[in-house]
């Protein structure tokens, strides 16, 4: 097991090198002088020269990449061109809302989707099943901003139950944070819910058709025990996999959801960077999000052994 974890950890290195190489080359291979692109449209030649020197753009390409990677390894994600602050500092300032949003979305999605999938598989072919399937087809099609604005309209503007937009930091009490994050978490969670519910149902249907389930029924085991104890745990591997795959949706979704709900997180940092063409910030965020994704995939691979002891490495 330890050997396997070490092997999987080592396998993440080439992936991250490719990611770093990609964001690095993107800046250098796109047509035009990178310094001029970064400096913007109204920059003077002196300002462009300054940026060129500051970013080391006058060095040979391989040397620049070497410096870039060694900076990354020391936790230096680069420096924002406009605020002159390290990207890592900017990220730290914006981290809390995004993490709270991502975790609440995960919580909302899993706690609704798994029961939905289990019930749909149990009552397969009935109206309940069709409602769940209908929901999961719809959930894939409705874009997060449409759901977001719809929820705001109904629950904030019409009913006045929840705040329209904005984010209350955890320091102001968890109750306030929860009130501000409910709508964003549901808006973002919808597509995720659809995905998990679909896979849960499919995986449960597979397991429920097996002999040992019939044996359990024959022994007179209660339905709830069969579903949750006998079936769900054995259906877990595809479900966990899809939760990992869905993380990509979550990261892209966070950026859009934060814009809809005016949440000052990493997504807003991204949007501000787009408007100012502050490429180092976007570069840093890509490295950060890609590392998170690689790390989660690693954790999911390791979790298989827990759900299915037959998987040996």
């Amino acid at each position, binding site marked *: 097991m330890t050997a396997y974890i070490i092997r999987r950890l080592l396998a993440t290195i*080439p*992936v*991250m*090198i*490719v*990611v770093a*190489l*990609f*964001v690095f080359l*993107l*800046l250098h291979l*796109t*047509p*035009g002088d990178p310094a001029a*692109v970064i400096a913007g449209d109204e920059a003077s030649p002196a300002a462009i020269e300054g940026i060129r020197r500051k970013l080391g753009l006058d060095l040979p390409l391989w040397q620049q990449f070497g410096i870039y990677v060694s900076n990354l390894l020391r936790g230096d994600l680069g420096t924002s061109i406009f605020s002159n602050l390290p990207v890592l500092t900017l990220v730290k300032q914006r981290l809390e809302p995004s993490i709270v949003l991502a975790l609440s979305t995960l919580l909302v999605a899993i706690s609704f989707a798994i029961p939905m999938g289990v019930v749909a598989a149990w009552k397969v072919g009935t109206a309940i099943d069709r409602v769940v399937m209908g929901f999961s*087809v*719809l959930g*894939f*099609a*409705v*874009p*997060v*901003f*449409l759901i977001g*604005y719809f929820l*705001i*309209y109904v629950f904030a*503007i019409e009913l006045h139950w929840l705040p*329209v937009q904005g984010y209350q930091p955890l320091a102001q009490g968890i109750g306030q944070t929860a009130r501000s994050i409910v709508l964003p978490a549901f808006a973002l969670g919808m597509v995720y819910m659809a995905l998990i519910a*679909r896979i849960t149902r*499919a995986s449960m*249907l*597979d397991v429920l058709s097996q002999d040992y389930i019939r044996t359990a029924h024959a022994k007179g085991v209660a339905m709830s025990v069969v579903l949750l104890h006998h079936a769900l745990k054995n259906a877990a591997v595809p479900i966990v996999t899809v939760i990992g795959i869905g993380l*990509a949706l979550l*990261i*892209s979704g966070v*950026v*859009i959801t934060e*814009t*809809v709900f005016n949440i000052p997180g990493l997504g807003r940092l*991204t*949007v501000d*960077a*787009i*408007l100012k*063409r502050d*490429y180092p910030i*976007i*570069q840093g*965020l*890509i490295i950060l*999000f*890609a590392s998170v*994704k*690689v790390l989660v995939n690693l954790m999911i691979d390791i979790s298989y052994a827990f759900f299915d002891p037959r998987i040996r490495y």
Partner: protein
Amino acid sequence: MTATPIDVAGARRSRRFEWLRRNPTIVVGATILALFVVLALIAPWIANDPLSFEPLDRLKRPSAEFWFGTDQFGRDVYSRVVYGTRISLVVGISVACIATAIGLVIGVLCGYYRRVDDTVMRVMDGLMAIPAILLAIALITLMRSSLLIVIVAITIPEIPRVVRLVRSVVLTVRGLPYIEAAVASGTRTRLIMTRHILPNTVAPLIVQATYVCAAAILTEAGLSFLGAGTPPEIPSWGNIISTGRTFFQISPWIIFFPGVMLAIAVLAINLVGDGLRDSLDPRIARRM
């Protein structure tokens, strides 16, 4: 003895009808899609100039004159939404075609030549680790935004998924006895690839292409919504929603109509995709 005349055409027609009857999702999805295509084609005849603005008609509610209301510049949201259909369809179809074509070539080469496989798959793993929307944002921040750049930016992150799919099909097929037989009888490599391996990838690729198309339309809308998509003067659904953002509390219709069109278009494409997947691979039908 006279041969019994066989109604070949009739039999084929009834079989085709039977196939459609058993796949109602494809019929529903394809019909809606056809409507969208018609809408995109006849846009100049059923809608006004999407760019003309009338400051006196700012933020008007939906009415007989302005079916979907107007935005803060007094532009007719209905006309803009109708023209937006063109952008979404062009982006969706182009991305699906380009990503599938490039992914197919790389995937077949990877599956067949083990030497390139390792390197190329590491690159694909790296690309897949980058969230699609951020990769597109990075490209668009660096270049001047245009419809072409948006299409390229959305295509790149879709390629690895196609490559993986094609590669897995090729790897499975390559081990089958009939390929061994072809190799043993001296068939040229190119012929093995095009005649014996490629046809196996067609069915899964068509299904994958529909999902890529739907994802591309959503990504374009998301990018435009964030201000990193098609140039703001082009009336794409994402851009219309983006302009409506500031005023959505008083004029929700600016967001509602393009949003609903977007959802219906994506739903229709997904229905076609689901239907094709179920009819092409009956083993997983009913399950998903």
